[in-house]
């Protein structure tokens, strides 16, 4: 079916208010936050804004019959090209399909549509002293549907884990238009081991198996107290060693973040008032819970860190906590500003390695940066070995672009060599798909077979993830 006809049929199916077909409008859907689409934006054939499961079903049935690709999209804040129609197709913008269907306080769960923004959901849950713990840096803009598709996590994954741990069930529209409910058709149980766990299969499947239209999430009680410890190290190896010792002491902080010397320099250049001490590494520990346990954990972390750190500070005063945490919260922005004529790029930004190899990995990345003559800023969630690397280049200089592509490739290979993975929380999409076979071996073949069961015509967000 030619594109003109597709646009016409979609408009007939859903009405013109739910469909974008104008060529200029479509250009706005040619990107996400990836370096890939910054270099090469690709517009879709049409954009559809479903408002119900039935709307999604209609689009899927139409696309299935005519073998047209369908690409689900949330807020378009992903960093992998996952929500862009790289090989043409219909983009399903689910960001306005965003109701909170039910907050079931007595069962500690919430049912939402995919477009609800993470921060908005937690704002509503807070009224009931509940929260949905995974906390991506993009909380203010990313959708929960996008979080489910990418199995997102964030700063507090150390203690609270990833999105998958909270998804109790999903409503999914399959490519042929069938609607399935995972986690039990009527179940509101928190524990459920009946049947194959299709919920876990769907979470993190990046929209290649179906379109998530309803999400049942487990919520947790909101902790009452919080504290922050900052430890400053002159030796990089002392940082992961301290983290390990904290774990060994039976303490599980809610977050453990690292800024290496490059990130410290970037933060100080960006906001001199923060005035982070110059060091090889700074660790920030966040603990939460009830007040006595927070105090106990904080003072214990301080004692442990003092064995290796040049300086340690523990704070529970909100103002001081905010000051200590500010260094971490501005790092992503600061990275962009270390070079006046440059920009940070989102590529090679999400490797995850075993804790024991974090220091070696950071050193190796610095060396790679030097090899290619590219400024690289490193920070991340050391508590789970997730390193965020921010190469800073002039993205409009073709030579630099070529060099950074090589650098990113080497960072990804390094992650695999270090017994880690190319992505800890951002996902694969288009940009890390080439490593799927190396990372998963024979299992990769079975992934493809599973994809084929759900999507025999290969129309569901094709050429992504696997």
């Amino acid at each position, binding site marked *: 079916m030619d594109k003109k006809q597709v646009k016409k049929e979609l408009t007939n199916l859903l009405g013109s208010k739910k469909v974008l077909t104008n060529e*200029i409008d479509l250009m706005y859907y040619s990107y996400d936050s990836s370096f890939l689409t910054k270099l090469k934006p690709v517009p879709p054939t049409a954009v559809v804004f479903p408002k119900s499961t039935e709307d999604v079903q209609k689009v899927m049935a139409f696309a299935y019959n005519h073998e047209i690709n369908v690409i689900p999209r949330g807020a378009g804040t992903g960093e992998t090209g996952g929500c862009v129609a790289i090989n043409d197709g219909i983009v399903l913008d689910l960001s*306005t399909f965003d109701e909170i269907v039910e907050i079931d306080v007595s069962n500690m769960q919430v049912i939402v549509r995919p477009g609800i923004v993470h921060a908005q959901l937690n704002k509503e849950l807070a009224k009931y002293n509940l929260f949905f713990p995974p906390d991506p840096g993009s909380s203010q803009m990313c959708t929960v549907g996008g979080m489910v598709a990418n199995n997102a996590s964030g700063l507090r994954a150390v203690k609270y884990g990833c999105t998958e741990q909270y998804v109790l069930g999903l409503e999914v529209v399959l490519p042929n238009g069938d609607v399935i409910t995972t986690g039990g058709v009527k179940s509101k149980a928190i524990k459920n081991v009946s049947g194959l766990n299709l919920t876990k299969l769907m979470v993190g499947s990046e929209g290649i198996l179906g379109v998530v239209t309803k999400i049942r999430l487990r919520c947790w009680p909101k902790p009452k107290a919080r504290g922050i410890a900052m430890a400053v190290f002159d030796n990089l190896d002392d940082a992961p060693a301290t983290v390990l010792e904290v774990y060994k002491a039976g303490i599980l902080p809610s977050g453990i973040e690292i800024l290496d010397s490059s990130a410290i320099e970037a933060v100080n250049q960006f906001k001199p008032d923060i005035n982070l001490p110059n060091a090889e590494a700074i660790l920030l520990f966040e603990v939460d819970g009830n007040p006595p346990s927070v105090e106990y954990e904080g003072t214990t972390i301080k004692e442990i860190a003092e064995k290796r750190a040049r300086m340690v500070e523990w704070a529970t005063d909100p103002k001081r906590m905010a000051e200590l945490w500010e260094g971490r919260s501005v790092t992503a922005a600061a990275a*962009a500003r270390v070079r006046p004529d440059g920009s940070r790029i989102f590529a090679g930004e999400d490797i995850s390695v075993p804790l024991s190899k974090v220091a070696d990995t950071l050193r190796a990345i610095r060396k790679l940066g030097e090899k290619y003559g590219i400024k690289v800023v490193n920070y991340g969630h050391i508590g789970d070995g997730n390193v965020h690397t921010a190469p800073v280049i002039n993205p409009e200089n073709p030579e630099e672009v070529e060099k950074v592509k090589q650098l990113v490739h080497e960072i990804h290979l390094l992650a695999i060599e270090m017994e880690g993975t190319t992505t800890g929380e951002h996902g694969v999409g288009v940009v890390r798909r080439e490593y799927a076979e190396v990372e998963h071996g024979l299992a990769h073949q079975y992934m493809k077979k599973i994809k084929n069961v759900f999507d025999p015509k290969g129309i569901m967000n094709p050429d992504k993830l696997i």
Partner: protein
Amino acid sequence: MDFRNIPPVKEQIMKCVRCGKCRSVCPVFAEIRNETAAPRGHVFMVQMLRDGVVEPNNEIYERLANCLMCETCSINCPSGIDIHELNAAARSYIYENNPSLGKELIFDTLWTKPGLLKTSTKLMWGAQKTGLQPLARRTGLTRLLPGDLGKAEQILSSVPARSARSQLKNKYKAQGEKKYTVGYFLGCGTDLLNPGVALATVDVLTRNGCEVIIPPETKCCGLPHIANGKLETARLLAIHNIKIFNMYDFDYIITDCASCSSALSRKNMEFLLGGLKIEDEAKLFADKVMDLTKFLIEIIDIKIPENGYNEKIKVTYHDPCHLANAQGIKSEPRELLKRIPGVTLIEMSDANRCCGGSGTYVLTHYDLSMKILDKKMDSIMETGAEKIATCCPSCIMQLKHGTKRHNYKSEVVHPIELISQAYNKPILKK
């Protein structure tokens, strides 16, 4: 100046990583909710224009113009991109390639000549007083106005009979010991729509040791032109005003209008005149410019006497975007209000959220502007305030419309009017 050489176009486009932070804060996006209204989408489209992927035509202009220029995106951008400047530069580039008669008339002819602007305002006043305006509405004549102007003309429903300029002299001596010589930049909005604000400004400044000079040759600050694709006209206006004000030896150049003080700021001068011969002269000028509220707190440290003003009133304050976002002036107007005897300041939620007026935006995008206004009015009405204070003629006009629209009995004022009243003396007359 070539569009591609304007500093933000040249240096900042590449910095956008499309992280989407701007989506979460943009008042227009919150209503439209598709990517064509996202500030990062505007940055993307400016890039497409720069690279020649799209033509500079009206289709692109319409999309870029669906932006309040409230600068909320710019102050929240992690990469430090001045998104509003990119947008303004692109609108101007498109406009240069697609001149339209209507805009020529409004922005090049009317809005650069204070006399003509005054005459048209008077005509509007006359139409209201004679009943011609309702007739025009009934006959549908207002529908002939471009864009949403037909609907929007109702927000201009109370144009005063006399401008401030017609009631003010060019020079006022300081009362008591003279501390400063101040150039008062009397903006179009204050002059024509809120003359009482101008009278109050002169009153309070002179009471506080300022000799006030109001250069009669002052022209528009150029902000409406920046927002409407007339960058070159804005440059000419800026150069004219710089030349006029630099002829005096002012200690400070003060304005009571948030939009004027942002348009005359160093940051905006760099945007408009960066790289031109006049840049240094412009910086000299801009470094003397200060918003009235900041001047009264930081420089004057104003004390407002208790005598004779006993009325207890609850006041809420709305942050104009061009004060809070463009200049970071948030605490000073609040501090001023708190210093007025009898005033209790009640904070509204999201006080720094745009009211949707944004100068000419309400005229060109009336329906959307009303949706944004309704949210603002919800915040205001929750406070139960008897007076709504703000420092921008456009916000005053929009909020007055909001109080009518929601039948909320509250007066919209500039803080300076409350201060002048608190001094309990007759308002200055010519």
